[in-house]
């Protein structure tokens, strides 16, 4: 059984963002450079570097520099599909409750 507990907080923070989940998904297919990721996600180099840094801190991505090019690959920590789904679910639920809060605020007094 996979332990979801250890380091769950940093991993959760890392995958709670759709772009970072996309990066993990992309790196799951093959390694990529920062430049390739930036173009794949239509982001600036600085923007993508920030996301990669968060993933690196959570040990979900490893980078290595060759000359002026930085390569990214998944690992050393690997999340199986289910762990990713659990974290996605949690992020979705939180976002949903945010929307419920907004909805209740918006319709205040309007409904019985």
């Amino acid at each position, binding site marked *: 059984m996979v332990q*979801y507990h250890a380091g769950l907080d940093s991993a959760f923070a890392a995958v709670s963002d759709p772009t970072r989940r996309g990066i993990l998904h992309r790196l799951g297919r093959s390694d990529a450079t920062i430049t390739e990721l930036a173009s794949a996600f239509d982001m600036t180099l600085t923007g993508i570097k920030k996301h990669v840094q968060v993933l690196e801190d959570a040990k979900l991505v490893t980078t290595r520099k060759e000359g002026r090019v930085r390569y990214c690959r998944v690992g050393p920590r690997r999340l199986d599909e289910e762990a990713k789904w659990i974290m996605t*679910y949690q992020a979705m639920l939180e976002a949903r409750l945010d929307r419920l809060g907004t*909805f209740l605020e918006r319709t205040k007094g309007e409904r019985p």
Partner: protein
Amino acid sequence: MMTATRNQTKVTTPAERQIRIERVFDAPRDRVWRAFTDPEQVAQWWGGDRGRLVIERMEVARGGHWRYVEHMPNGTSEGFEGRYRDVAPPERMVRTFEWDGMPGHVMVETMTLEDLGDGRTRLVTTTLFHTNEERDGMIQSGMEQGVNQSYAALDALLAREA
């Protein structure tokens, strides 16, 4: 245990495979309950900002089926569904939750609403995740128990007949 506070939501993971989220809404309990059980209201907040939520089924009663489908602008859609296990208005609802993208990974959501007495409501959701192995194990043990009960009933019947 992990505790994190994002926005006004308190998230804890009291046990592995369990997520507990607690949040206070500035609305009376009946309103919060209706926001979860009236399809017309659910359609207005449950889905993401990008998509359009269609409530395909929503039978809010024990054993009832629910299915929501979120239609994205790019033409794709994502479905979520499950069954209500317990419905006790306006304070408790238990239902299963399954996403089309991860078929077989059923989770059980328990929601309780507490009237704070000042027009606010505390919502607590606890979600329990099961692995396929655990679920299969549960089904198996449940069946064993059922079979044993049947055997006991048969034994009793045979004892009376004798």
